[in-house]
Every structure is written in structure tokens, then in C-alpha cells.
């Protein structure tokens, strides 16, 4: 029992420590681009997350564990998916929801059935749609609207070396911490070293999105521009690295992880074309979370059935 709990606590620190390390870079870039508003949004999110975590732990008579990094990670993720100049109560509501409705009632960040950050963001996206997708902060950008908004309206842009660099370094309108693509590729390399299996779902997700972008382009330009714009719009890459690889919601088996990623990718791309939100990736992740245990159950049943069949064959061959 003690060794199990030791392993669980070590695993929690290992997983969320990695996330925290990865989240430092997009946070720093958001502060670099947006300055004080980004810092304020990050600060409010972290503070609210900790406050809710502490108060609810006291209310339900659980020892508050300051080194539990799941709340910190969720709070930073929520802040990074918001516009920098968002009213402060919105990230506060999102973090409160993530902790009070998703994290604490289900027994902590390692047991939550839905990704807390995605849930918090989805909650405020429904409540305060206009504010959550209103990207006006920052300097004068080349394009007046975000890439996700451009794609939603069917507008396109020609990909040149100059604007490709802007897209790669996140110098475009959008959520404050999900624009810099280079950082997410670096995070993927980091995950490849630390938690290789988690990247299977990310790979499935990204490949599905690319295939969708090729088959059903929303731009009038080339296939390359369709793929680049779909991948770099909104929080898609951010979600593929941070939300889709969440430890508690990821299926157990490799093939299930792949199926989970593909499923999430299909939902995300369908929602991008049909839903009322310009960036529905969080809703897609939540929907995929709901199906994640079913994937595990299905695979376990199939494996048990195959094992039984192989045992029967062995018995018959021995006889």
C-alpha cells in the first residue's frame, strides 16, 4: 500500500513537473509579447487555482498538499489559452471550475476523468464567448484577426517566408500563449524523451488534422497553406501537447492512444467547420475524454477474447 502510494505520488510529481517545465516557455513568450496584461492573467489564474484548491481541501478535510503541481499546471494552461487583455474574472471562473468541479471531486489531478484545463476553458467559452475569443491585445499585427477567425470566415493568406516566420514565432493575433509553434515542437521533443507513449495520441491527432486540412481545405490557397493555417490556428498545437497527453485521461494501451488521438482530431476538425466557436479544440478533447475509458474496456475485452482463443488452441493441440 505504502509502496503503491509512493509510486503514485512520485508519478504525479514526475508528470506535472514535466508539464510545468514545458509551460515555462510559452508563459515567458506570452509575457514577452503582451507584457503586463499577460502577467496579470497568469497571476490571477494561478492565485485563483491555489485559493480554490486550498479552501476546498480544507472544506472536505483533506490535507492541502502544496507540492501538488496539477493545479498550478492547469491554471497556467487556462491562462495561456485566453487573450492577454481578458477581464480578470474570466480566468478566475475557469480556474475555479477546473479545481472545484473537475479536480477535487474526483480525487486529484491524477484521477480526473476530464482534463481540468480543457473543462475550465470550455466552461468560460460557453459563458463568455465574446470575451474569450476577442483578441485585441498586443502590438499592430500584419492581420487584423486571428488565424482561427480567418479560417472560420473562409479567408486565406498566402504563405510566404515572412509570414511563415511570424506564424512560427507566434507573432500573430490569438490566445496569449498558444501561438509560438517552435516552442511546441520543442515541447514535443521533450515529451519524446520523457513520456514517449503519450506522444502517440498527439501524433494521431496531428496526422488526422493534416489529412482533414488536405481533403477539406477551408482556404482558397495551396494545400501547404491550408495545412499550415489549420495547424497554427487557435490552440490546436498547444492542446496536442498539453491537453491530449494528460496522464489521467490517456488510454492505457498504445493502439487506444492512437485511436484516442485520431478520434479527437476528427471531432476537432468537424467542430471547426460546423461549431459556433472559432476554436473548439477544448470541446473536442472533453468529448474524447468521455470515450477514453470505453477504448480501454474494448481493447481489454478483445485481448481477453484473443487470449482465451489462443489458450483453447493450445489445449486442443496438446490433446
Amino acid at each position, binding site marked *: 500500500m505504502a509502496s503503491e502510494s509512493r509510486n503514485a505520488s512520485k508519478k504525479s510529481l514526475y508528470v506535472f513537473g514535466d508539464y510545468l517545465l514545458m509551460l515555462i516557455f510559452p508563459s515567458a513568450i506570452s509575457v514577452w509579447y503582451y507584457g503586463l496584461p499577460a502577467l496579470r492573467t497568469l497571476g490571477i489564474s494561478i492565485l485563483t487555482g491555489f485559493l480554490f484548491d486550498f479552501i476546498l481541501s480544507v472544506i472536505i478535510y483533506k490535507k492541502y498538499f502544496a507540492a501538488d503541481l496539477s493545479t498550478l499546471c492547469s491554471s497556467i494552461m487556462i491562462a495561456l489559452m485566453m487573450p492577454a487583455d481578458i477581464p480578470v474574472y474570466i480566468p478566475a471562473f475557469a480556474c475555479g471550475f477546473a479545481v472545484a468541479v473537475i479536480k477535487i471531486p474526483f480525487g*486529484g489531478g491524477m484521477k480526473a476523468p476530464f482534463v481540468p484545463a480543457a473543462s475550465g476553458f470550455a466552461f468560460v467559452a460557453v459563458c463568455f464567448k465574446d470575451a474569450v475569443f476577442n483578441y485585441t491585445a498586443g502590438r499592430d499585427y500584419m492581420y487584423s484577426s486571428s488565424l482561427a477567425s480567418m479560417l472560420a470566415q473562409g479567408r486565406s493568406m498566402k504563405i510566404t517566408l515572412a509570414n511563415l516566420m511570424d506564424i512560427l514565432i507566434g507573432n500573430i493575433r490569438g490566445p496569449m500563449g498558444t501561438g509560438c509553434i517552435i516552442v511546441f515542437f520543442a515541447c514535443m521533443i521533450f515529451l519524446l524523451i520523457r513520456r514517449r507513449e503519450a506522444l502517440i495520441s498527439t501524433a494521431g491527432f496531428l496526422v488526422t488534422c493534416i489529412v482533414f486540412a488536405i481533403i477539406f481545405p477551408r482556404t482558397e490557397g495551396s494545400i501547404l497553406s491550408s495545412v499550415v493555417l489549420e495547424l497554427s490556428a487557435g490552440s490546436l498545437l498547444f492542446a496536442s501537447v498539453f491537453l491530449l497527453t494528460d496522464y489521467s485521461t490517456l488510454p492505457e494501451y498504445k493502439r487506444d492512444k492512437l485511436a484516442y488521438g485520431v478520434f479527437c482530431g476528427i471531432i476537432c476538425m468537424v467542430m471547426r467547420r460546423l461549431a459556433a466557436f472559432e476554436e473548439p479544440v477544448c470541446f473536442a478533447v472533453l468529448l474524447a475524454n468521455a470515450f477514453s475509458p470505453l477504448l480501454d474496456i474494448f481493447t481489454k475485452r478483445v485481448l481477453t477474447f484473443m487470449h482465451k482463443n489462443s489458450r483453447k488452441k493450445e489445449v486442443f493441440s496438446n490433446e
Partner: protein
Amino acid sequence: MNENASFGKRMLNTAFKNNPVLFQCAGLCPVIAGTSTLKDSLFISAVLSIDLILSAIIASALLKKIPRYIRIAVYLVLGLAIIYPVLWFIENKTLVEITLGIRIIIPLIAVNSLTAMHCETYSVKHKTGDSLVSSVCTAIGASAVIIICGILREIIGKGSIAGYPLEIKTTLVTMSMPFGCLIVLGFMAAVLKALQRSPGRYESSSDDSPLHPEEIALDIEQEEAPESVDLVIADYEEIDSILSSTDVFLKSLTGPSGESGGDDE
């Protein structure tokens, strides 16, 4: 439930300790669909109560000798037979306005699980008087939850109460949606469960002796409810040292042959 107990005790037991909506999850469909405002929830609770009480009386008086598999169907027909006259009366003989949303939800009340469950588990096994008292207690318990849910959802989701606007600048639209009701019900169940706990159960311990290593490990995992509320401020090094001390202690307990389990990482 003890039939000889007083009405107050039976009420406490049925409406508070074993609330049919919060703890048995019965009749959730009309509750979720029809409690976005106080007016709607009052209407739903009134119709649900009439349906439940009349069904329970009829079930205990007439349906005892009918086979079980037929009784279930009879409850549903009975529900429709009770609700439609009530609805007709409200529409034609009173000034109450029935909204379109409520019109859709009313048939759900006729087939709700709360009535069928209460009739099947209690009414058909007891006398009519007992069944009446029990159904009244159940109806009050369910109605209380429905009305509180309606009040909370209207205040948080629409910033008003019974249609009168309150001075609330920020409202959460999601609370008017069905999933908002599930969240409210979840928190209400948690609060009710917490109120039912004996107050001395979590009184802080006066024992200041150091924790047993297994207890430390349990606290780190946060699986068990601890005896007292303390702050554990720890960082990586502290946790590592605690865990290693736990390991050493367990090894000393189990001896050289004892296995403490390997680290998967």
C-alpha cells in the same frame, strides 16, 4: 423505514438522509430539464408531487396482487392518467401560464423513475396510510431539491429570481443549461452528505506524536480523509526524503526477504 416512527422522523429519514433525487438519483430527467427558473421548478415540483402521491395511494390500494412486470406498465399509464387532467385543469381553470418548455417536460414526469421506484419498493408492500405518509415525505424531499435547484440556477444563470432581475453583473449562462443542473445537484448532494456527518468525526486530534510512515505516504497520496486539517508544505526534496525514510522503515519491518515493489519508472 419504521412505520411506527413519527411523521417528523420519517420526514427526516426520507427527505434528508435518503433524499430520492440526490442520493437515489430518481426522477433526474424532469429535474434537469425543468428547473432552470424558480417558476418552472415550482410547477414541476407541484405536478411531480401530485403524481407521486396519487400513484402511491392507488398502488398500495389496488395493485398489490398484480404481477410485478405488469405493475411497471401500470405506473406509467397511471402517471399519464393523473397528469393530463391536472394539466387540463391548470390550463383551463387557472391563470397560470404554461411555457412551451414545461409542456415538453410534463410527459417526462408521467414516466419518471421516482414514482415507479417509490410505488414498487414501498407502496405495494405497505398499507395505504403508510404509503400516503411515505409518498408525502418523498414528494417534499424531491420538491425541496427541485425548488432549491431552480432558485440557484436562476440566480447564477440568469441573474434574476422568479423573473425579477437582481443586481448581478456577471451571470454564468451554463448554469441554465442541463449540465449546470447536474453540477448544482452534485454540490447539493455533497453539502447534504457533509451535514449528515457527525460533528465529532473530524475533530482535530490532540496527539502530537509524529505520523507513522505509512500515514505519511497516505497523506501524500491524499486518498484517505485525515483526522485533522494541517498544512503540508513540501517540495521535491522533502517528499523524496519522506519517501526514502518510508522505504527504509518498511524494509526494516519486512526484513531482507520482504518486497516493497519496484518503481515502474
